């Protein structure tokens, strides 16, 4: 190791992986991964969300996890966003691209992406 910059580069590379291992209160992004969800394509949604959160260095604030069947199988893949102190937002019929949009506009920008949310389909 010839310089601090080298150390910093390794740290930055590793940091997002390491931050995932914390018990702190995170914003939780939960993907429905029961049989219905997986069949509807929940897995690429989950992986896209997880990868993007890591790429953007947000793992210290946002945890991407899965859950079982949410009970609205016809709307899968479903993604729920739980932010500490805020009401839950449920996104339905998600795919990888919509997931990226949710990260950009909701999780980073702070605005719920109404057009994909459950409220928008009049289901609330």
């Amino acid at each position: 190791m010839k310089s601090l910059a080298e150390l910093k580069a390794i740290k930055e590379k590793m940091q997002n992986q390491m931050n995932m291992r914390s018990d702190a209160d995170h914003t939780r992004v939960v993907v429905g991964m029961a049989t219905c969800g997986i069949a509807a394509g929940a897995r690429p949604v989950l992986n896209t969300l997880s990868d993007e959160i890591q790429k953007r260095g947000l793992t210290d604030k946002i945890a991407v996890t899965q859950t079982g069947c949410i009970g609205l199988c016809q709307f899968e893949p479903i993604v729920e966003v739980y932010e500490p102190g805020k009401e839950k937002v449920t996104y339905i019929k998600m795919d990888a691209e919509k997931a990226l949009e949710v990260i950009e506009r909701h999780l980073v920008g702070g605005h719920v992406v109404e057009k994909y949310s459950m409220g928008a389909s009049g289901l609330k």
Partner: protein
Amino acid sequence: MYRSHVLVCGGTGCTSSGSLKVKEAFEKAIKAEGLEKEVAVVETGCHGLCQMGPVVIVYPDATFYARVEAKDVEEIVKEHLLKGRIVKRLVYEEAQTEDGVKTLADTNFYSKQVRVALRNCGVINPEDIDEYIGTGGYEALGKVLTEMTPDEVIQVILDSGLRGRGGAGFPTGLKWKLCRPNQADKKYVCCNGDEGDPGAFMDRSVLEGDPHAVLEAMAIAGYAIGSDQGYIYVRAEYPIAVERLKIAIKQAREYGLLGKNIFGTGFNFDIDLRLGAGAFVCGEETALMTSIEGKRGEPRPRPPFPAVKGLFGKPSILNNVETYANIPQIILKGAEWFASMGTEKSKGTKVFALGGKIKNTGLVEIPMGTPLRTIIENIGGGIPNGKKFKAVQTGGPSGGCIPAQYIDIPVDYENLASIGCIVGSGGMIVMDEDNCMVDIAKFFLEFTVDESCGKCTACRIGTRRMLEILTKITDGKATMDDLTKLEELCLYVKNNSLCALGQTAPNPVLSTLKFFKDEYIAHIVDKKCPAGVCKALMTYNIDPAKCIGCKACAKGCPANAIKVNANSEVKEGKKLPYLVIGDECVKCGACQATCKFGAIYKK
């Protein structure tokens, strides 16, 4: 990139309960489900709750699975990792709630803990230097080498109030300060990983779970005192720790974090391992250095102190593993941060190894000054089987006992010293009403008699005579004169031994005498062991009123001591007493454990 991490504990405790098989099973099952690109399996060091091993933690949900067996793994993978359904039946009981599970940090065992020395244990893969760096590792070394003078480093450690965690509690900054001005062609930084105190295993845990923290701290110490060579003395009975240290040293050398011209600053520092054969005395600083030199590990008189004339006759410092594990954090977060935890004279946190009659055995790290009650009742979960808390032994064979009436004592150096106890290396053995205090004192004295190196008479012969008197007491053959003699001998051994092994050997006797003298007297005068432990002083008996004569006890008795009573009388249609226990009894207690009717009792 992985979306989830499965952390499998690879510490000594969990390894011995089969965690490596669990890890293999995870790797296999994850592959079978095609999840190997999504879920990483990481072998970590100890997470502290050894009682519940093998321990598996799944992130990012922080789900804590306890006592996981290889056969459970497929279910966790299929349910949790694939479908996100937590397998509740395998979750650590304490973390289960009515409507799901809570994270580790919210359980009683962890919520009162503050992890500084143990911060990475159970969290990172100790065999991957990148993971250590990912949590800020080697940044403190970088900061010290590029921004601070050695004197500034020493000042920070002084201001932090950090004191040695190996037992004596000497201020670490002061130790470094005393060594720094001593000029020599070579100086040494040593690390004490001998951990001889029975029941203590925090140093093992740090070495297994976070070896780079110790390497980094030793390099910082090297810079502070002007040394370019370190030695870690670790006992050969810690094979996992030794292996991980070897890997860590190799990786640090490859990265140039050990070796020449570190961070291009011209500072050189390297570290070598020395394995100890496990003699208790080799944990004493002068004996340890003698042992590193390749000689028989015996202490020598001080002065000269190691700061002046230590390893190979050169100025040296020696610190304990846990002491070192605090150093990088102090450098990064500052002396004020560390000093903000703890009490006036005992700063920071301390790791304790909880063992004995307590529900949650394992390692806990808490701020100095935490009341004993919090440790026993909240973190430890109390005494099992509804028994009564009697005392806790701290500091192992050099320490003493804290009796139940002091359960609210804040645990720090000063408070424990005020009642004749020590923090020591952090062993805490909890005792309940079934423990005999004379027997406990005897247990520790047997240890010191075995471990006395024999160099000085007071320790070699004195401790042996003390043990003889204690044995006389537990055999019911002692007189009150013997007790007076024992007290005298304690003071003699304390005052005349060369090193702290002998000087502290009488402590368990002195402290039990101080708080439980009535138990000694009961053994001597009444020929009774109140706790029913000392075999010579108790008998097993059968209560004729409860015995139904099933003979289950007689069948299980290894000494054939339980016989049908030839002289039994017939009362209310029953022969009473039907069974009796004869002189052949070896007092193993098997009959009492077998009897379903509670008819067998100790007297």
